[in-house]
């Protein structure tokens, strides 16, 4: 009987080894070097360009400034799922990207600064003490694209505000990159430290970044403007003033697709799910989700949401278990 069992076990081995080979622990070092660092380098360099452009010409309608702003914002969206480690130190990521702003804190904070001509903007160091709602890409969008903020108060003050905002963005972009290059990347690459005790823990962090990034894009970037059928909320679309709402969905999906491919070792099914969502986004032709208010346009945005839900389902039901990350009934409940 015992011999029989051994024979059975051996016979079963080839069948078992096939999916196992497919389910290797992801190469965390390769993901850090091929996904995380290049994206954060791009953020640092694009945000430095933005600071330079603002210093050269602070006019809200300056083509150079708006182009630099768009490039830097693009670079942020491509890392907006990598919310751990250096991005969270000193609330740097929140200072770059205070959104959603459910209570309208950004226009309020900006209005207060401008109407009082608060001298706190005179130095970068002082500006870094103001509410994060008045800092970063979303606050800068008001200054460049909102007609009210492009003309309110004193023009010189607004100019200085735009310049210090850009410098602050550049400072945070550089600080996050430095955090990665000066230690955090090694913590992930060489697990066995207080932050990542094992390579599995580092892989789990990256998996969490993938799944929360998908969740944010589906539930917040799309869910906020979708609202409910009876109360659609097109005014809640992300960065709608600069016409970037759909662009952000596409950029985040592209970045998440790259991370998913690396984490899954090239899972073709998962990649195809991303391709379907991106194709749907390309067909949408609704840059700020204005269509959520009419039934047909709404259906198209809901379909995009559904495609992202399908990616999430694939990630949680297939990729997670393959990486040994079981979604426990309570463990992932979050309540």
């Amino acid at each position, binding site marked *: 009987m015992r011999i029989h069992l051994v024979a059975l076990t051996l016979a079963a081995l080839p069948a078992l080894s096939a999916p196992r080979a497919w389910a290797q622990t992801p190469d965390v070092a390769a993901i850090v070097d091929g996904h995380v660092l290049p994206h954060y380098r791009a953020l640092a360099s694009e945000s430095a360009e933005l600071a330079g452009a603002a210093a050269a010409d602070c006019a809200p309608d300056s083509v150079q400034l708006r182009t630099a702003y768009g490039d830097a914002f693009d670079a942020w969206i491509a890392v907006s799922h990598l919310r*751990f480690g250096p991005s969270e130190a000193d609330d740097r990521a929140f200072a770059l990207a205070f959104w*959603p702003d*459910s209570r309208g804190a950004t226009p309020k904070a900006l209005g207060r600064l401008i109407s009082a001509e608060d001298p706190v903007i005179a130095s970068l160091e002082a500006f870094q003490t103001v509410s994060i709602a008045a800092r970063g890409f979303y606050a800068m969008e008001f200054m460049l694209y909102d007609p009210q903020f492009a003309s309110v108060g004193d023009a010189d003050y607004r100019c200085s505000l735009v310049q210090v905002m850009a410098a602050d963005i550049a400072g945070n972009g550089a600080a996050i990159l430095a955090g990665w290059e000066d230690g955090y990347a090694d913590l992930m690459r060489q697990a066995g430290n207080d932050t990542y005790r094992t390579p599995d823990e580092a892989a789990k962090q990256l998996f969490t970044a993938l799944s929360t990034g998908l969740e944010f894009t589906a539930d917040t970037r799309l*869910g906020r403007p979708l609202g*409910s059928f009876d109360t659609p909320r097109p005014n809640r679309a992300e960065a709608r003033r600069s016409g970037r709402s759909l662009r952000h969905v596409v950029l985040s999906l592209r970045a998440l697709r790259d991370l998913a491919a690396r984490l899954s070792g090239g899972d073709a099914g998962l990649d195809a799910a991303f391709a379907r969502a991106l194709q749907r986004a390309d067909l949408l032709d609704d840059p700020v989700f204005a269509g959520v208010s009419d039934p047909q346009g709404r259906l198209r945005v809901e379909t995009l949401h559904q495609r992202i839900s399908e990616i999430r389902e694939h990630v949680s039901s297939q990729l997670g278990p393959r990486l040994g990350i079981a979604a426990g009934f*309570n463990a992932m409940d*979050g*309540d």
Partner: protein
Amino acid sequence: MTNRRRFLAGVLAAGACPRPTWAEAGAPAFLSAARASDGRYLLCGLRASGEVAFTLPLPDRGHAAAAHPVHPLAVAFARRPGRFAVVLDCVTGQEIARLDAPEGRHFYGHGAFSPDGAHLFTSENAYDAARGVIGVWSLASGKRLTEFASGGVGPHDIKLMPDGQRLVVANGGIETHPDAGRAKLNIPLMEPNLSFLGLDGAVLDQQALDRPLHKNSIRHLAVAPDGLIGFAMQWQGDLSDDPPLLGLTRLGETPMLVTPPKAQAKRMMGYAGSVALLADHNEVAITSPRGGLAQVFDTDTGALKRSFDMADVCGVAATAQGFVLTSGTGDITHEAQGWTTSHALQWDNHLVPV
């Protein structure tokens, strides 16, 4: 519904005889929501031995329950953002009443009875204003009588204090809106607190954590007969910080925060699921479903007394000797008596003493 309400009024009416008691519901020691293997959602009564005393169907995934202080009635709450709470007769299995959240409100999944059981206090989200409120419901009529402010954003657990005159509310601080699912909308600005309220909503005391801990969402509560409060937290900041996940306090005092040993802190991933107090032994237990770990600390010193591994553990309740724990894999374990029973059920977040 009218008939059911009349029935409930009869059940609750003073002098109505014979009045059913918890003994007639199979004398459960605890309540827990669960998911059955066929995907149905249930509310279960559990005996002290870990046996199932009864199972009642729920319309959707439950979260916590509240046991009536006198009669064998349980209120089961939907998981947030839930719109319903059902009042169940644990003897007959009948749904006696359904509490529907009014327009613009949803339940967070917890509630507490008044000392006589006539009223139920529920933690709710007034989501368009992102304001936490406590709904006050009449059990006899199934109607919502009034509401008052919870003292913060995102109220979650709510418990009656032992004097029967006050409530303690865990305002988790996190703003959500049902339109955006469970997405958290205000992490950089969140300000959780523990609020002590009169039964009329008067704010008696509020305790907040120091600013560096403002991303530590105070979620779940345990109250000892002497008024000691244990609170379990869920960290929303960076996981390399190893924040405290347990606090102990009393009305009018400053919380003592308990940080687990480093290796265990890493496993917990910033998340404590439930908390229970065993006052006679100066013990407090928290569970960590993400770490598959439960810990017992000394309530006086905050020192770790013992810990044990249990996959997907979340529910915990005190018994005369030690703690009972439940898991999403179906196990019920008594850590001090050393027994485990397994069920073809996934136990949901909380184990509520009857």
